């Protein structure tokens, strides 16, 4: 149980190489679950190794419980890590694997036995204690790797893509189990993944990284609903957010985004009024589930007619692809309405949820205006009609 704070952490390998980590600033409370997520090569694993002390930072400070640990060696940091490859000691049996860290810390033998028994019970691996890692399945190895981390009762757990070597079914099971474990133990945890589902489901806080920079740091909901830029918006969410290039028009002092499906046009009112925007290349971001079928009775939301080009039934949803502004757009619809390729659908959007990005910089526009406020404005407008 400890707080973790990273202050302006920098990491470079020198020789004129670009910095691997640039000005990383973040902090989490005691017991929180932090997710570092990003594409491969974004620096998330390096950052984790820096926290563990396996790599030295070249600038800034890492603080645990407000004490600077950046100069300490890994063994003095009281941090345990679960590796992607599990890194179980192949010549030791499961019991010795779990006990190794305790022996190194000169714990008395009786206490070690007790601790191993506790951890084995917690992870339901009591029957495996005498086996060698090579005799275990992937899921069992995963449990032992977690057991080794749990046994030390460290201040902070680090997980380095722990589920990526498991098959899909086991991955979902272990994900739930890790969450359960965290809810029970309430130990501060840092978890590296490239899987946005893991990021959304496990984290209290999520840091989305790219090119050694933190793109956004917030709760999963903030990251999902209120992405800071095009990269975060595209990285989080499955199926991914639709990005439609748009031109803005100004009508009666309001900015409208124009959508064209080839057979119909729609003017989407936006809650922003920045004069310079009409001339810029902009991108409209709409998540698939924010596009719905218009009800028979008009509800005042802006809509458009579009032809169905592809349907992908996933079971719980029906993904329908249409073309808006020459861009393929995915809509997540209820599967109970029969939809076939070639049908013309009446789609509608919730303007309150629509995001606007600058095409050149990828930055989100009107970030300071939260979507909820825009929504309130629009509802008021619709009521006023």
């Amino acid at each position: 149980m400890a707080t973790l704070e990273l202050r302006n952490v920098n990491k470079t390998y020198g020789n004129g190489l670009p910095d691997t980590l640039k000005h990383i600033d973040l902090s989490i409370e005691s017991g929180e679950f932090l997710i570092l997520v990003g594409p491969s090569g974004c620096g998330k694993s390096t950052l984790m190794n820096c926290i563990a002390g396996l790599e030295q930072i070249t600038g800034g400070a890492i603080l645990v419980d407000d004490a600077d640990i950046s100069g300490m060696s890994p063994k003095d940091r009281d941090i345990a890590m679960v590796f992607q490859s599990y890194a179980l000691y192949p010549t030791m049996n499961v019991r010795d694997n779990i006990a190794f860290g305790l022996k190194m810390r000169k714990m008395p033998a009786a206490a070690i036995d007790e601790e191993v028994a506790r951890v084995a019970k917690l992870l339901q691996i009591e029957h495996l204690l005498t086996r060698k890692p090579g005799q275990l399945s992937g899921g069992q190895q995963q449990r032992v790797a977690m057991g080794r981390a749990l046994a030390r009762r460290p201040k902070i757990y680090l997980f380095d893509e722990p589920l990526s070597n498991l098959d899909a079914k086991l991955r979902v099971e272990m994900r739930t189990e890790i969450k359960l474990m965290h809810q029970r133990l309430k130990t501060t945890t840092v978890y590296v993944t490239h899987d946005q589902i893991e990021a959304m489901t496990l984290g209290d806080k999520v840091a989305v990284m790219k090119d050694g920079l933190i793109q956004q740091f917030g709760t999963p909901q903030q990251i999902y609903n209120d992405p800071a830029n095009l990269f975060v918006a595209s990285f989080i969410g499955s199926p991914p957010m639709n990005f439609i290039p748009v031109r803005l028009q100004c009508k009666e002092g309001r900015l409208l985004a124009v959508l064209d499906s080839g057979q119909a046009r729609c003017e989407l009112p936006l809650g922003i009024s920045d004069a310079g925007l009409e001339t810029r290349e902009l991108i409209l971001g709409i998540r698939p589930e924010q596009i719905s079928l218009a009800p028979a009775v008009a509800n005042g939301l802006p809509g458009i007619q579009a032809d169905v080009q592809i349907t992908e039934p996933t079971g719980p949803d029906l993904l329908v692809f249409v073309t808006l502004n020459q861009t393929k757009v995915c809509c997540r619809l209820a599967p109970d309405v029969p939809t076939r390729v070639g049908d013309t659908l009446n789609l509608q959007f919730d303007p309150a949820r629509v995001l606007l990005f600058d095409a050149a910089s990828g930055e989100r526009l009107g970030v300071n205006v939260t979507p909820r406020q825009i929504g309130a404005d629009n509802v008021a407008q619709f009521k006023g009609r």
Partner: protein
Amino acid sequence: MTRSLAPRAFSFSRLAIYSTLLLACALYLIPLIVMLLTSFKSPEDIRTGNLLSWPAVITGIGWIKAWDTVGGYFWNSVKITVPAVVISTLLGALNGYVLSMWRFRGSQLFFGLLLFGCFLPFQTVLLPASFTLGKLGLASTTSGLVLVHIVYGLAFTTLFFRNYYCSVPDALVRAARLDGAGFFTIFGRILLPMSVPIIMVCLIWQFTQIWNDFLFGVVFASGDAQPITVALNNLVNTSTGVKEYNVDMAAAMIAGLPTLLVYVLAGKYFLRGLTAGAVKG
């Protein structure tokens, strides 16, 4: 009735294959057979019989005489080989561990330079080595010869261990560091127990090299400290008296048996180590 996959019918091609194999096998085995047979013959038997004839009377007299002559040198060879093999293997393991898991600036260059040692012919290092041994006060001592073998073997053992440890995931070392293990604990508790196969490879290689060495032995050891290879040479090349082929052959067998034994024993462990130490993931 199930039919065997092997063709039952006699065929000339098969006969040709088997007879070629048998011939090759015989060619390889005949020298050994001649040696064995001759070593158990009496001197008269050797003079009267032919090379491949069975001994008229099987006698151990050649072996006894051979042991009396080279037995002392046999123990010299043991005293040279065992420490040289053990130390060069251990140091090679340590070198390989550092060069694969604790890379430092210039470690690749260091490794590259070390590899030069594998390509150096023995003859080129004779003079510098004897000069160095003289300076160290180890000239014409068993320790000196051991030192030469260790230094010369390090290039090979380092190469073996370094390449073996490169295939070990470095996450193991990182996990052990987080668990609180230090440099030597990680080496001794994690890596060495995994290294049985490569240790066996090193032992076989080094034992064969050092036991069979003649040149270093003849240059750096003198008198009673000489290894068995040198003693064997002296025995066979004596120009006085009657040539005792049975003694020569028995002495050659005595000189060759330990390497054969190491192959038979360590080869088994080597295979076992290969299958048991398999690392998953």
